């Protein structure tokens, strides 16, 4: 005997149910687009913010995050769930951003220009006008910082990731993360000194 026991409550869709990432990732790995769409909605905004911090340009950031999600979709069937989905997609996005930065023309040496390095869009006048001077100074200081330190600082202070998550994303130890964070804070503090 077969009895249909469909719920009497309406299907509120995957988005409304607050399902854990790991469950959505498992379904997406088997080709369930709806589950993947929830993951895109859930993580897209913070990944865009991360990419914008790393690339300094909203258009580049959108390209990087789009590439990262498409790459994640293709790689999901091989994703072994050894890391949280959030950490995994952060890592893919970070690598995409680093690749895009590497392909850019090299920045002019600092002593060759009167103003801070002009290769990043956060140096554009329109954008600077929207920022107060201190935030612009912070963006400039970030742009000039060692890549590993900058990444750790953005992931911690802008994205709010834990040391453990940052260590996973950057494939290093928590101790290394904390050391890079300290040096990042130190050099950013010095760069911000005129605004005290």
């Amino acid at each position, binding site marked *: 005997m*077969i009895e249909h026991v469909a*719920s009497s409550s309406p299907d509120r869709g995957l988005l409304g149910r607050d399902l854990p990432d790991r469950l959505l990732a498992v379904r997406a790995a088997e080709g369930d687009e709806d589950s993947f769409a929830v993951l895109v909605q859930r993580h*897209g905004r913070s990944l865009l913010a991360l990419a914008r911090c790393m690339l300094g340009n909203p258009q580049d950031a959108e390209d990087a995050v789009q590439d990262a999600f498409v790459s994640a*979709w293709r790689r999901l069937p091989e994703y072994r769930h050894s890391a949280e989905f959030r950490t995994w997609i952060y890592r893919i996005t970070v*690598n995409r951003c680093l690749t895009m930065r590497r392909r850019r023309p090299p920045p002019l040496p600092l002593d060759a220009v009167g103003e801070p390095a002009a290769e990043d869009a956060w140096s554009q006048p329109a954008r600077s006008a929207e920022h107060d001077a*201190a935030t612009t100074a912070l963006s400039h200081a970030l742009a000039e910082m060692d890549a590993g330190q900058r990444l750790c600082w953005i992931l911690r202070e*802008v994205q709010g990731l834990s040391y453990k998550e940052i260590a996973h994303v950057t*494939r290093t130890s928590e101790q290394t993360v904390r050391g890079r964070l300290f040096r990042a804070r130190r050099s950013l503090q010095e760069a911000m000194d005129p*605004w005290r």
Partner: protein
Amino acid sequence: MALDDPHARPTEPPGADGPRTGPAAGIPPFPGDEVLPCGRLLSRVWEQALDAAPATDPHTVSCPHCREAVEGLATLNAAARALRAEAPVGLHALADRVMNIVSAEVRLGRLLPLADPVRDLRISENAAAKVLRQAADTVPGATAATCRLLPEGDGTGVRVTMTLAAALDGPLPDRVHQVRRSVFHSAVQDLGLDVTAVDITVVDLLEPDPLLPPGGGPS
């Protein structure tokens, strides 16, 4: 510099962050660290100020050196807050583009026979799994995880193997039974499969759905 590329690590000497002896109760300082006059390490005072709840350490509250060190970060912290509060970026167009690309990349999986006598109808595993996951999802307090379909025997038989996440606000056996019936019904009635078995394993727990009464509603 890709993080996965071992030849392109950020420029740091190897072992730069390794343990080393130092002051401040044997806590190894980071390169470039500073010992405050009170004996505390600047790096740890900053970490404590930024990571821990305020006033968890009586020393930091009363120590003028620690307080000064923390106050030295105020400008940076204010600018970081402004950076965090930057106008939220629109996601709609980006999400649409991603999902358009994703939808264009069809994954069929294996082709399975439908229960017709001449055996010339097939359905892709992924399409069938989507329907069966939806059937499982209709049971309150249950959500399908994986769903695989395998041909069984020489004929049109198909075995369904599903993993499930379930809430514990009602008896688990009842809920699994409901899911099995729903999946079986959908496989036979909606898809026309010749189902030989529906194997279900609960692999994950769900928070109880706050919008449903305890027990997941009527069964």
